[in-house]
């Protein structure tokens, strides 16, 4: 047996150059243009030739088995080169155009879909949910699966007016950054933390816990002679910031936790400025395994958008053009007091003109 190698630290990632297909290396920084060949298939051309990209869906939570199958296909069709996108799609990088169709056939046979380019729904970005996270109000992988089963035709085609980005976050921490997606599915708690007065003094520092609340809802108190905290329920907005700091303040509540739907965010600067996602539906129940209320709501918003938006108009651009009152009219979504902002700078969202439609 060889002796164990010396322990090294702080080497950083390997240099990316060794992972670039030779055509990519030669065209690096010199690309001239790209073409869209069909849904899920792009070509990029530079002075040293063309590379073809085939993009497929991935559930993001994938096993070594799944990846080994993907890598077998990469060896077979793309000289062992592939990449992932910022939305967790997988892209094969092909030198030969004639490999495109056989690769697509093999991908479909292994149970995934090719698409996600241009005016399509790309892979939804999502968080961990019940699979790995301690603060989740819902699952994320399951929600994505249930929603995308309904919307897969918009992944495999480019028939939407513009690209449409769906994201899922299982709590307000939003590791999936749903705050700027076209349609966002956001898990939320709706009840204040339940305080474990036994564990709290042992697990948490009182001043840090008190300071963690953005709304000053937490106060020190004493119960049975032990210092702990209490929560002013009127001020609590169930953000869970205190739970992150103090594990003895869990929020999970199977009866009240659920899902909200947000619409109209975007990141890209194309045409209009980046926009935050805005509240469409404040609460839908957690109904695993298929969340029918959520999938119905998302599907009907997508279909309404597809039928009414102009070419290249993102969801938020479409709603800004027609106005939010018309969006609520057309979608049949009820406008409630929960749609009125009451956090910081809420007034900036109030209507201060007479530009209404009747």
């Amino acid at each position: 047996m060889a002796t164990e190698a010396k322990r090294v630290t702080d080497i950083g990632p390997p240099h990316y150059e060794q992972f670039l297909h030779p055509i990519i290396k030669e065209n690096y920084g010199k690309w001239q243009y790209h073409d869209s060949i069909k849904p899920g298939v792009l070509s990029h051309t530079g002075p040293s030739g063309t590379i073809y990209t085939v993009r497929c869906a991935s559930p993001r939570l994938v096993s070594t088995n799944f990846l080994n199958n993907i890598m077998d296909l990469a060896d077979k069709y793309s000289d062992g080169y592939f990449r992932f996108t910022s939305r967790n799609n997988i892209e094969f990088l092909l030198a030969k155009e004639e490999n495109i169709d056989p690769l697509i056939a093999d991908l479909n046979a292994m149970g995934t879909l090719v698409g996600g380019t241009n005016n399509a729904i790309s892979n939804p970005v999502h968080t961990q949910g019940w699979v790995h996270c301690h603060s989740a109000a819902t699952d994320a992988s399951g929600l994505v699966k249930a929603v995308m089963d309904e919307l897969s035709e918009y992944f495999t085609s480019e028939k939407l007016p513009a690209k449409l980005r769906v994201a899922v976050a299982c709590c307000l921490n939003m590791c999936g950054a749903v705050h700027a997606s076209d349609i966002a599915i956001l898990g939320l708690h709706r009840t204040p933390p339940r305080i474990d007065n036994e564990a709290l003094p042992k697990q948490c520092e009182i001043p840090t816990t008190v300071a963690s609340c953005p709304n000053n809802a937490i106060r020190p108190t004493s119960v049975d002679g032990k210092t702990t905290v209490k929560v002013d329920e009127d001020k609590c907005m169930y953000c869970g910031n205190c739970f992150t700091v103090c594990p003895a303040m869990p929020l999970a509540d199977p009866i009240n936790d659920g899902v909200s739907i947000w619409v109209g965010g975007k990141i890209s600067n194309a045409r209009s400025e980046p926009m935050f996602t805005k509240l469409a539906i404040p609460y839908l129940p957690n109904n695993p395994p298929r969340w029918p209320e959520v999938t119905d709501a998302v599907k009907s918003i997508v279909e309404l958008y597809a039928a009414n938006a102009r070419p290249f108009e993102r969801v938020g651009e479409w709603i800004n053009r027609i106005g939010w009152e018309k969006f609520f009219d057309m979608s049949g979504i009820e406008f409630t007091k929960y749609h009125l902002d009451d956090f910081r700078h809420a007034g900036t969202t109030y209507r201060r003109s007479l530009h209404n439609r009747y």
Partner: protein
Amino acid sequence: MADDLKTPLLDELEKGPWPSFVTDIKTCVDKSDMCKDLLGQLEKSYEDRRGYWKHGGLVGVMGYGGGVIGRYSALPEEYPGVSHFHTVRVNQPSGWFYTTDALREIMQIWDEHGSGLTNMHGSTGDMVLLGTRTEELEPIFRALTEKGWDLGGSGSDLRTPSCCNGPARCEMACYDTMDMTYNLTKSYQDELHRPMFNYKYKIKMSGCPNDCTAAIARSDMGIIGIWRDAIKVDQAAFAEYVDSGMDIQGAVVDLCPTSCITVEGKEINIDDSDCVKCMHCLNRLPKALSPGDDRGFAICLGAKAPIVEGALFGSVIIPFMKIEDGDYEPLHDLLERIWEFWDEHGTARERIGEFIERISLATFLEGIGEDPSPKMVKAPRDNPYIFYEEYYEEEGEGASEE
């Protein structure tokens, strides 16, 4: 064996056209009890409509403060396979490019020491190896570093920088996102691996204002490519678009936000002094239009999701900068000035965007030694409560001696 595993609710998620994570995890249950008990515990979550993971837990590898997320089941007796289910963040290569040879090595390590489940990739950008036991962490770390891989960041430190594929496969890239990501990651290993900040600090690099990494919304420091001179036009290629029958007026001209495009016959004219570099016309006409020659990047600070003070987009702090001859010194210098000032005056769990809002942009710019510019605001202030710092004093008696 996994014969006793019953998951009627999760089984529903094996139906339908979208690839199923449940089907995939099931392929692993004979390989690892972790996968079996993960499915078991998840099924219980689906029944009871709540998660069953305990809050955090401090684990890591020797000498590192970040890179591993501790996770323990709240039901370890029922699901011993996931009594520990820690996550290892592996620093991904720039642009998420791989070869099968390299990724296979990692997958072998993971089959040997972990659950065999991964996230490709996590929200910050790292490759996420999902689920292992405490005693496996050090062996995994050794095996990874032997193959040339290192951990990413977690906690209140520099998070793993990430970027779009930039010049590797995009004609729009205005700077080398891939190289900058590599450079920053290598230069700040200590900040990445040993939490030393008030809170997390994410850096994302996008090659153009299409912003494929969502830097404007998801990074404390978004570095987004931009150009300053005229859009480059290939009139012959434009004429081909016209000849192809494309609706140039509807799809391009009418959608320019500043109405700076006109078309005469088969010729396109752009008034570049009004162009806001939104990318729409370049996206529609990639063969005819490309970013100008004077390329660089803008730096936007402060994006974050809602917790604690509400969501923020990044705002422009440096309207234009470029790296010349591979010299990253000016960027490092800026980054270090920002960190130093935030370190000194920020409070615990205060993201840099919240910090800037609290102390004001003017104070922040002064603190890091940058001058204000109209490119940093949508409009100047509309309230008159100005904190003047300079006063005229009457000369002679009573005048300040300071």
